[in-house]
């Protein structure tokens, strides 16, 4: 799956579920500052990404990576790693 395809899926979730304007969503966009998500949104976003891209987060193994994610590109990289 290409970065563009993954970005498209992430964008759909952010627009439909988090009511974020599509024009501010891009790989460099920061999750907490520019997109104004909070830690609770982060929890919900992970579940939605699991469903969208058909992977499962291992809380113990992935916790550190998830905590360090700051941009959409970080999410794209994480998803690529999980579905590889």
């Amino acid at each position, binding site marked *: 799956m290409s970065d563009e395809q993954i970005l498209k899926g992430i964008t759909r979730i952010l627009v439909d579920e988090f009511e974020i304007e599509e024009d501010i969503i891009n790989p460099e966009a920061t999750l907490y500052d520019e997109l104004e998500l909070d830690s*609770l949104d982060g929890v919900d976003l992970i*579940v939605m990404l699991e469903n969208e891209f058909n992977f499962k987060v291992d809380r113990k193994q992935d916790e550190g990576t998830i905590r360090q994610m700051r941009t959409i590109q970080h999410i794209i990289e994480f998803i690529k790693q999980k579905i590889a």
Partner: protein
Amino acid sequence: MSMNRVVITGVGAVSPFGLGADKMYENLCKDNNAVVNLRSIWEKHVSDLECWVGAPVAEPLNEKEIPRKYRKLMGRTAFLAFFAVREALENARVPEELLSSGNVGVSYGSSTGSIDSMTDFFMEIFRTNECHQLSSGIFFQVMSHTAAANIAHIFGVTGRVVSPNAACASALQSIGVGYEYVKYGMIDMMICGGVEELHAYTSTSFDIVQGTSTKFNERPQQTPRPFDRDRDGTVCGEGAGCLIIESEASAKRRGAKILAEIIGFDTSASGEHMSHSHAESIARCMRSALRNANVKPSDVDYINAHATATVLGDMHEAEAIAEIFGEHKIPVSSMKGHIGHTLGASGALELVASTYMMRDEQIIPTRNLENPDEAAQALNLVSDLKPTKLDVIMKNSFAFGGINTALLIRRYKS
């Protein structure tokens, strides 16, 4: 410790008649009833209810007016409360910066958190035996202080935030607690009230203990029937009421319009029974509230009764009122025949209606009261919209758990 005079400077209501305190009052004055048959909705949840009538809020709420960052943490209970509180804050002209000054608090109760959200929560777990897919916001919709916490969150309130949850006495107890905080100088202003979300499971709780009206499923507008000999139980309703209360000094400082003064309150328990009302303890609570207000029974111009139209509850309240006020023939009425029993919201909605009655110098009669039962015959039950000078009003609310509350308001004079 300073003792402040405590005044009401704003009101808001979401009632079974829709959004707005004015709308509720207009419908009460027109003797309208908001009870409808909900069988087609409720039987999907519970198939063997005896009571199929309820009083839901008749108007859709536009939750999208609330930014998502707040909305995601709110269920219907918090939504209803939000619209009542927003109206009351606007009505009282409370500036935004005052809300986060630390001198404003929230005292706002309900019987439970959102039942709709609670249902989603358990349905998902029962269906999957997993919690993973549940939204992170659901707990904040379900928690018992969801209304108070969400109000504080949305409006940026930084003073004390409490949620007295005492079923049907939640609102009046919340207002009473707020009154005491302001009276004793602990805070300048409190956003007070109560809320209840109507769900099949709400009515189920009353159905189980045979407290609901069951004979009027096909004639919903004729029930509930407070103090009437043919009353057969209560009808659960939905809504949220809010009163902005503050010290007289705070109101004067801001140039706020004062709607009424709160002069006394008490809450106490019967210590007798979890579900039965108890005339002696109701009388004790009302007497204590009168003492707290420093007024005599003969000073009271009107009693807005709890009177939910249960057989025992109305009888016990009538006995207690007759014992204390009997010789003075103080006018009495109940709003439940119009809007049903809005449970955790009832004390606030009915107190809001009482402030309007005081303003307009008239008493709204009890709807569906045709033949007062024996115990109620000792009371001066108002049967028509009655012009009356109202200087002092007593409001009663009682609840499961043997919880009694009584609060008095007076026409404000500086």
